[in-house]
């Protein structure tokens, strides 16, 4: 059963472009940007869906419309039986939202106080609230941090608190907008594990946007790729992983002018003096094998392993699908 249903949803933003000099006093140049351009999709109960795309693709705009804080220019949507922008407050009881770059906690207060206030805001009875809080705090290892002001927590600790805060009222649907942005590898892994396990155990549906392809691979079972406001691809993560997501970039800084690696599935991207970047197809050769091979050559001063930029992944998907 679809709990999110989107039909030909469109959002145009209008803004006034300032003219130079005195001309601005007499005429207004109104520009229109199509942020979301007629998208349609459905999300079933318990699905974990990633909405990905480069900056300005329309991901966050879509998420805002689905959570009710932005009205579309045209089109229709239903989330858990509600029209989000018309029944925002009723819908709020049933959804949890995490913005990676925006805190919902009170910075100068301990997380414990924020949680207590959220209990009131969501009308959660005390027994249910305390049971849920204990479970989440224990799962996230937040016990020692609950009484520290949120502004003194690290980004990773704060993000764990944000996720707990978004789950205290037992939402059926979780919207996560860049939940791992700015976090270190350990913190990212902890959050991904938690989202996957918790959503599975509680039967929650998850809609996630991210620039990190690992978030998508490890959390979601379906990917919707948006570019320039349109859906380019909508398919299972497994299918997409086989084609596009199994790549890593290994950057080697060396004492020698250049490094030569001859391994299957490893292609050189660029070489500058003392800097070599290789693209590794992890379905053919694992990253640790590549690193070992590089270290065996000697003279390696620094190694960086990262995902290809989301823009590249989307471009590859876009090109492969020939959609334009």
């Amino acid at each position, binding site marked *: 059963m679809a709990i999110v249903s989107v039909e030909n949803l469109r959002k145009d933003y209008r803004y006034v472009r300032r003219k130079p000099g005195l001309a601005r006093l007499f005429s207004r140049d109104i520009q229109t940007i199509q942020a979301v351009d007629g998208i349609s999709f459905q999300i079933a109960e318990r699905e974990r869906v990633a909405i990905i795309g480069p900056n300005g693709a329309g991901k966050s705009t879509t998420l805002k419309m689905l959570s009710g804080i932005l009205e579309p220019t045209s089109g229709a949507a239903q989330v858990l039986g509600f029209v989000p*922008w018309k029944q925002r407050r009723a819908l709020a009881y049933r959804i949890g*939202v995490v913005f990676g770059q925006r805190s919902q906690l009170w910075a100068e207060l301990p997380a414990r106080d924020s949680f207590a206030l959220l209990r009131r805001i969501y009308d959660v009875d005390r027994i249910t609230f305390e049971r849920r809080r204990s479970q989440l705090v224990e799962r996230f290892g937040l016990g020692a941090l609950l009484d520290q002001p949120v502004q003194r927590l690290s980004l990773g600790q704060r993000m764990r608190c944000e996720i707990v805060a978004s789950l205290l009222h037992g939402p059926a649907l979780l919207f996560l907008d860049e939940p791992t942005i700015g976090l270190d590898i350990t913190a990212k892994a902890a959050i991904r594990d938690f989202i996957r396990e918790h959503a599975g155990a509680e039967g929650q549906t998850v809609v996630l946007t991210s620039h990190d392809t690992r978030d998508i691979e490890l959390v979601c079972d379906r990917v919707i790729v948006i570019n320039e406001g349109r859906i380019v691809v909508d398919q299972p993560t497994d299918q997409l992983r086989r084609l596009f997501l199994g790549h890593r970039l290994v950057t080697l800084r060396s004492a020698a002018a250049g490094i030569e690696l001859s391994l299957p599935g490893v292609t050189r991207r660029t070489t500058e003096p003392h800097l070599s970047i290789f693209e590794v197809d992890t379905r053919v050769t694992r990253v640790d094998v590549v690193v070992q091979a590089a270290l065996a050559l000697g003279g390696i001063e620094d190694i960086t392993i990262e995902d290809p930029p989301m823009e590249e992944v989307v471009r590859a998907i876009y090109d492969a699908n020939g959609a334009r």
Partner: protein
Amino acid sequence: MPSTTPTARAELGAFGTLASAASAFALGVRRNFANWPVLMGRALFYLVAMAVLSALWDKVAAQRLSGTLASALPQGGLTLYVGATEWIALSIAAIHLRLEDDIRLGMLEPHLLRPKPYLVQKIAETLGDSLARLFGIGAAALIALALSGRAGPPLAAFLYVAVLGLLAVTVGVLLMTLTGLAAFWVRRVLPPYLIMQKSIFLLGGLFAPISLYPGWFYRFAMWTPFPADLFLAGNQMIAPSAATFAVSAMIQILWIAILSGLVALVWHAGLRKVLREGV
């Protein structure tokens, strides 16, 4: 799964909103007492300001030039008046800056995703902040008054001022809320804030009772909300009476109702803009 059914939540309705506002209010109070060094600093600033202002007004009162309105005030009355108005002015928490931050930086979005009205929560939290400050600065003021040996007003006046002070702070918070909501249109609220602040100082009578102003100016000021923020409470320190107390309280309550309506109107206009155009 959600802990309360949608029907049960609908029944909670206004009670749920009040309960969450009460929690936000308590949180505001707690936050101030938790940050007690800041509260102490605020009280210390009040004492320093009063030391300067009382020296100034005592010197003016000592002249007691015949024929001036100041000469009609009780000895030391101006100092007591300013003591009350400063107490109120320094207790009003800066909700305009919080609103500006939330609106301008997009921090409003997480709040709009909650089932309780954002602005009610924010005002309740700010009133909690302001109440804690009223208490902290008020305690410092009373101690300083006792230690100074200065003659105070009758005891009843303190009760009147306490009640009117609470209402005055509510008026002040609503005025500052209106200022903060300007961020929906002007992004930076400093210009409207300066206009509001100077209006409060001048028409509200921060440094001198507006009853000392020319008659036409006094009558004009009394048609604005600003005396409800400062003068009406401060006046009880120089001319306390049960009758003026009751009238003052009614005027303040009237202004609280008018300003609440205005705040609701402006908020909804701003919210429409954000829901249509995004943050």
